[in-house]
């Protein structure tokens, strides 16, 4: 069974006409463009044949007996939505305590709410991409999160997608819609994990964020799939005037991972921070594609992405800043820094600028290198072993971006998980 045939719109539960039309036009779009190939510039460095060859199932047998403890974020007081192999588990979830003015419920149940029809797919349908079209056609799991004008969610929302099915490869198409009204605030953590590193699964996720005037949205993507699993995550962001959106991405797991972040700064003086880290080992392939569009005057965007590649892994970074004619007064910065820890590792970096307005300040920088020998010598001259010196320096390189995250428990968890993945050094203790 190929993935196309998992798109059985007719079998979907009863839904509004617009949703059915959205799915049908997306399916037509997918039938036309199909899966991305490396002939497509945007997919030039990532071959997805391994994904398309697998016969995916839409669901499979899941176990009732699941211990969530290892997948919680210690010390984080958050609302929790748990999806097991793509299916919401209300019994394991707790969406309470978010306070007044906040709607947080399964997307599929929210389709008839005011505004959903206008927003769902409004951003994703503009991207010509096979995986996004597939999600538009087949979305099921995921949340609708709305924070109304002037309200703030009282605690962050942790959306945990856990892969447990060992025998059947399951493809899920998680879909979240996040709407922050004027001057509203919300923090959402999208978290992908698996109960073992033997699981073969696919999460083809799409999240659309609408941040209205003066809103603040902080979004985390913690990708910790099985090392035989696949994750394609696309985050669309549309920002109104003076809104602030922070996107943090940490890619640790997965055999092939593609992380798309596609913000449009559509209102004057909007600010967008895109912060990311990808740490790969073995034969992992972690691909990041940023596409920041400045469509309104006087907006600011900041992109900071870092990668560490060990063994035979490969990292890819493509970051494009697009400044429309309307984007006068744009201030955009993009940096991508990579570190290779082995001679078999590889990185492809493409920092790009596409600029149609003259009153702009845009810079990008990309560097690739290894641990600085001078710094290693400095550490050793203070009595630290070469092993420890290198480990500390690699850690320091990676950890810089954690400081930009507002949720300290997430920071601590990530630091611990990252350290576990980096080359180990006897005697090294790190405080986070």
């Amino acid at each position, binding site marked *: 069974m190929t993935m196309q045939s998992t798109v059985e719109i007719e079998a979907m539960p009863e839904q509004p006409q617009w949703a059915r039309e959205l799915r049908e036009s997306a399916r037509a779009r997918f039938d036309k463009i199909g899966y991305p190939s490396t002939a497509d*510039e945007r997919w030039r460095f990532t071959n997805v044949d391994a994904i398309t060859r697998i016969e995916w199932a839409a669901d499979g047998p899941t176990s009732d007996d699941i211990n969530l403890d290892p997948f919680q974020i210690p010390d984080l007081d958050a609302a929790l939505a748990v999806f097991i192999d793509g299916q919401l588990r209300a019994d394991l979830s707790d969406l309470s305590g978010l306070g007044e003015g906040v709607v947080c419920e399964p997307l599929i149940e929210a389709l008839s709410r005011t505004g959903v029809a206008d927003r769902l797919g409004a951003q994703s349908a503009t991207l010509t991409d096979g995986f996004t079209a597939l999600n538009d056609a087949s979305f099921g799991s995921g949340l609708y999160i709305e924070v109304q004008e002037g309200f703030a969610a009282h605690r962050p929302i942790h959306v945990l997608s856990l892969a447990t099915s060992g025998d059947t490869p399951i493809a899920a198409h998680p879909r979240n819609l996040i709407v922050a009204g004027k001057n509203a605030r919300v923090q959402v953590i999208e978290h992908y994990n698996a109960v073992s590193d033997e699981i073969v699964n696919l999460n083809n996720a799409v999240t659309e964020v609408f941040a209205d005037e003066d809103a603040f949205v902080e979004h985390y993507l913690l990708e910790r799939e099985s090392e035989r699993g696949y994750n394609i995550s696309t985050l669309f962001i549309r920002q109104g005037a003076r809104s602030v959106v922070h996107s943090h991405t940490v890619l640790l797991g997965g055999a092939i991972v593609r992380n798309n972040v596609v913000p449009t700064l559509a209102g004057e003086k909007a600010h967008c921070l895109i912060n990311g880290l990808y740490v790969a080992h073995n034969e992992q392939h972690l691909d990041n594609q940023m596409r920041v569009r400045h469509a309104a005057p006087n907006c600011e965007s900041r992109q900071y992405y870092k990668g560490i590649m060990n063994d035979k892994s490969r990292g890819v970074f493509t970051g494009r800043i697009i400044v429309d*004619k309307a984007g*006068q007064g744009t201030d955009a910065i993009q940096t991508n820094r*990579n570190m*290779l*820890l*082995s*001679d*078999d*590792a*590889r*990185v*492809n*970096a*493409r*920092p*790009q*600028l*596409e*600029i*149609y*307005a*003259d*009153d*702009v*300040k*845009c*810079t*990008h*920088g*990309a*560097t*690739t*290198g*290894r641990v600085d020998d001078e710094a290693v010598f400095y550490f050793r001259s203070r009595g630290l072993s070469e092993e420890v010196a290198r480990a500390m320096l690699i850690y320091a390189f990676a950890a810089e971006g954690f400081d930009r995250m507002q949720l300290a428990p997430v920071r601590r968890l990530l630091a611990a998980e990252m350290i576990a993945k980096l080359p180990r050094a006897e005697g090294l203790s790190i405080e986070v």
Partner: protein
Amino acid sequence: MTTTEEVARISDERREYKFGFVTDIEQDFAPPGLDESTVRFISSKKNEPAWLLEWRLKAFRKWQAMTEPEWVFLPYGYPPIDYQAISYYAAPKAGPKSLDEVDPKLLETYEKLGIPLSETKTLLGIEGAAESPADARRPVAVDAVFDSVSVKTTFQKELAEAGVIFCPISEAVRDHPELVQKYLGSVVPYSDNYFATLNSAVFSDGSFVYVPKGVKCPMELSTYFRINARNTGQFERTLIIAEEGADVSYLEGCTAPMRDENQLHAAVVELVAMKDATIKYSTIQNWYPGDENGKGGIYNFVTKRGICKGDRARISWTQVETGSAITWKYPSVILQGDDSKGEFYSVALTNLRQQADTGTKMIHIGKNTTSTVVSKGISAGQGQNTYRGLIQMNKGAKNAHNYTQCDSILIGDQCGAHTFPYVDIRNQTATAEHEASTTKIAEDQLFYCTARGISEEDAVSLLVNGFCKEVFSELPMEFAVEANKLLAVSLEGSVG
């Protein structure tokens, strides 16, 4: 930096493309159209040996099976090229042997372009040269290519005394077949890409340079390319070989008449630098850019590549690209020898409705290889300017290093500046740094200049020249002055 007086003088010069005239001269044409007989016609016109005809035919057959690439970033696009409407050969009827025999109309043409074909005259006849130090006025050997043929190569005798061969490539095929056969297509294979393959099939003329072991070429070498005939394409081929320890500096310049239709220029340049050899290749490209509505102009689709074959070899590309309706080229260096060096210095200016997608590729293969890329893009009018570059470091390129800096400025809100670098690193000891920025001309600098009484247009020209200084300083002195002026003229009308 340009002085104020200089800027003032430049403003007084003609505002139009000043090389847009047509030389009325009797020419031999191949009828428009391209099939095997065209390839055979060109080859027989040049009395080529059988191996070269075979090579051309192989390329032609390959080309027929290829499709024109589409990945180039040209926001305005371009209409499909009708390859059957182009004439692939045009040559002045009287084939001159010495200067006295050169058709006076041709001499006049090059005189007007500022290129002396008489060895007693100094280079270019530009006023700026008078301000240059005396050593900058040493003779420059010139190969003049008019449409499909070379009409004159100067200083051949003096160069021969030093052991340097500098002649039209068609002459080299005749006189040095072993060298041509050995190196032709060795850096840019006949099957390399659509336009290079087309060139391999129909190339007409171009320059050939051979600098033997240990020889430092005693003078600058240069080629001036002129497209004159209507409906022709120019497909020249340049091949430069520097043997062990040799050193040569070469410059090319290009102009064409103003015409309403587009003309195709698909050249190939191959450079081979052996152990400890240095090749410096400079280009001042001023093909007719078309008018402000995007009508007419040259399609400049060129493949340029050099290989540092031996250890410590060095290849340096410098380009000043102000002309052409579309510029699409990436002068590249394959760094094969250990400790070899590749450099790329570029100024690309797009005004009117010009489009450029240009940059470089540095392929690091050898140990301790280094490359430097400095690109300055200037967008004005409705110009669209794209830097595209590849830095690739292979597994064996231990301790390889690249530094890339690409800056763009925009003048006016109708233009675009784009930067698409590719970095591909495959070993942990290699390091690459890429920096890029895009801004408009600094208001405070502009104000400072105008407050001192400089007109806004001249101030922009001044500041742009300052912005490009790093690249101009890589040009041979005489040409740096020329480049400064060219930039000022090309920017005219872009302010206010």
